[in-house]
């Protein structure tokens, strides 16, 4: 079922959007996944157009963590399955064809809560997340058609995945927020980006906690091997950094205001044109009414913002995606 015919059937809400006049990604869809209960959630679909943002549909699956979009503009979402300790218990990935509200379950993995997800050009699903009620962090891939889990990394080091990205060659990058131990000795002490080079089994630290200090979201790898990511301190600063391939220091940095962006508790998506990032707060930094921001890259100018103000029982946002998404 296509979205335009669905729009009348659902509560379609005109979103009060702030459009600054700066070019935004036209005719793109922004997916916002949200939680309404420990076992319930959904995913709002916003159409971005010249007039702003409009809610055009809501998937009845979502709230289980991140959102991803593949090269064919299929959306991947995860249903809520939280325990009372706010640990997501399963990674149960559904795929939605462009514009459809009828999803297909691809696979379900127990004992893994996804925090970041991306899709390779061949449809492989990459997930970074944690084992519930533990400090065990996992990076795994699921290759179609069987989507059997292949664990790429498992660690007791309590870092939190902020994003995952794969380039055309299959090099995989994972962003990590704060290690809680060995500070300040650990080179991932306050954030880092690790890389699993294509065809290899040994991870390397692509960026340690200097350029990647205060890691908040990302990275996104680009076609020239640069990494784009967000660093932030709640109420203090928000930087969009770009670090070229082979370098360890940003070649450019956009400084955004310390507010209203969510500091560290954010989710980020990168559009196909490579000219826009989409940001929103997640977790307790993403309650009902939280804004979504379309931010021009690399300038950092906010081009559009709109609140996520439905459904009324939204507890908090868990992830954001954009279609078409960027594929290096």
């Amino acid at each position, binding site marked *: 079922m296509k979205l335009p015919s669905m729009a009348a059937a659902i509560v379609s809400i005109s979103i009060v959007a702030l459009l600054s006049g700066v070019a935004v990604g036209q005719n793109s869809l922004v997916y916002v996944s949200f939680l309404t209960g420990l076992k319930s959630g959904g995913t709002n679909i916003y159409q971005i157009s010249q007039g702003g943002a409009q809610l055009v549909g809501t998937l009845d699956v979502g709230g289980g963590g991140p959102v991803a979009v593949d090269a064919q503009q299929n959306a991947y979402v995860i249903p809520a399955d939280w325990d009372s300790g*706010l640990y997501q218990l399963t990674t149960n990935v559904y795929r939605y064809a462009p514009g459809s509200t009828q999803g297909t379950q691809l696979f379900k993995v127990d004992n893994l809560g996804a925090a970041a997800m991306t899709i390779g050009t061949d449809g492989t699903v990459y997930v970074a997340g944690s084992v519930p009620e533990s400090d065990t962090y996992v990076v795994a891939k699921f290759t179609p058609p069987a989507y059997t889990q292949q664990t790429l990394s498992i660690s007791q080091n309590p870092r939190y995945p902020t994003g995952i990205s794969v380039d055309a060659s299959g090099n995989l990058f994972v962003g990590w927020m704060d290690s*809680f131990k060995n500070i*300040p000795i650990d080179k991932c002490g*306050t954030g880092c980006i690790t890389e699993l080079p294509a065809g290899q089994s040994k991870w390397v630290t692509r960026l340690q906690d200097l350029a990647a200090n205060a890691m908040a979201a990302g990275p996104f790898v680009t076609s020239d091997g640069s990494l784009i990511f967000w660093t932030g*301190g709640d109420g203090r600063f928000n930087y969009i950094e770009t670090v070229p391939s082979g370098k360890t220091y940003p070649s450019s*940095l956009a400084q955004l205001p*310390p507010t209203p962006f969510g500091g560290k508790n954010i989710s980020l998506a990168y559009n196909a044109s490579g000219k826009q990032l989409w940001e929103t707060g997640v*977790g*307790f930094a993403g309650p009902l009414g939280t804004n979504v921001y379309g931010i021009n890259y690399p300038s950092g100018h906010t081009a559009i913002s709109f609140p996520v103000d439905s459904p009324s029982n939204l507890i908090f946002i868990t992830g954001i995606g954009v279609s078409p998404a960027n594929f290096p």
Partner: protein
Amino acid sequence: MIRLSFWPPVVLLMLGTFIGAQAAGPVKSDLTGASNTSLLYVGLFNGQTVNVYRVPQNEGPIQQILDGVSNITGDLAVDKSQRLYATSNAVMVYPRGGLVPALRYNFADQHQPPLVAGTAIGSDGTLYTAMYGDGLVAAYLRGTQQRASLTIPTPSGTTAWAVAVDAQDNVYIEYAAAPYPSTGHIEKCAPGSTQCTDLGITLNAAGNHLAVDLQGNLIACDQLAAKIEIFPPGSNQPRVISQGLVGCPNFALNASEDLLYVANQPHDGNNHGVSIFDYASGALVGSITAGIPSDDLIIGVALSPVAH
């Protein structure tokens, strides 16, 4: 587990209050202008920031360094390449105009957590740190952050408050018993040596910074007397700069060595901003208070470029 809106334990350890950057929108990372533009860095403990000013323009901070610093707990220093060294438990290094750290000295070879007071950069890029908590000065060669190449203990019963290095790589250590106030002394150590000679200088209380100008004059702060004291080579009789000072824990001399910037602050805080003195005459010629709340603690003053 989803990220919730709490700070992880490492951040909860931070003390003081936040003062967020006031940027109105996205800006370029480097607002500092041409490399020959003089910059003043002022470290603020509560603000958890290093304010960056263009000088001698009398304007507010042009940007704030926030990433990589929590509370500024020790000195600031600048090397010949105009890199800023900011002490926030670890010493974080920023390229000129940089807002994110490029290098970190975490003192893994010292007692944890490290407690660094004064810092100085040698002509070869060696970082010298007065390890207040350990009663020694540690030297880290450029590019070697993991292990000190030299440690110089201070005399028994004292600890290191400040350190300076001259063009010949002689090291000067300001030491006193802890806590404040205790009588301060200064010793001179030959390059690469732990053999030091007391210079016969007595301070009512040590400051947090020490410097040597191009003529070899030693610049120290008598914090209890609120006086900058300038000792000619071989002398323990100082020239004094004190006009309007209520304290002088940190200071910096500009590259042409005609202006001295002093954190005008008594030991218990309540700063009066940064006072600017004509170095030759000692006359007060200006002050900077913009961006420096009077109830904050100035810990660290540095200028870029440095004289060399």
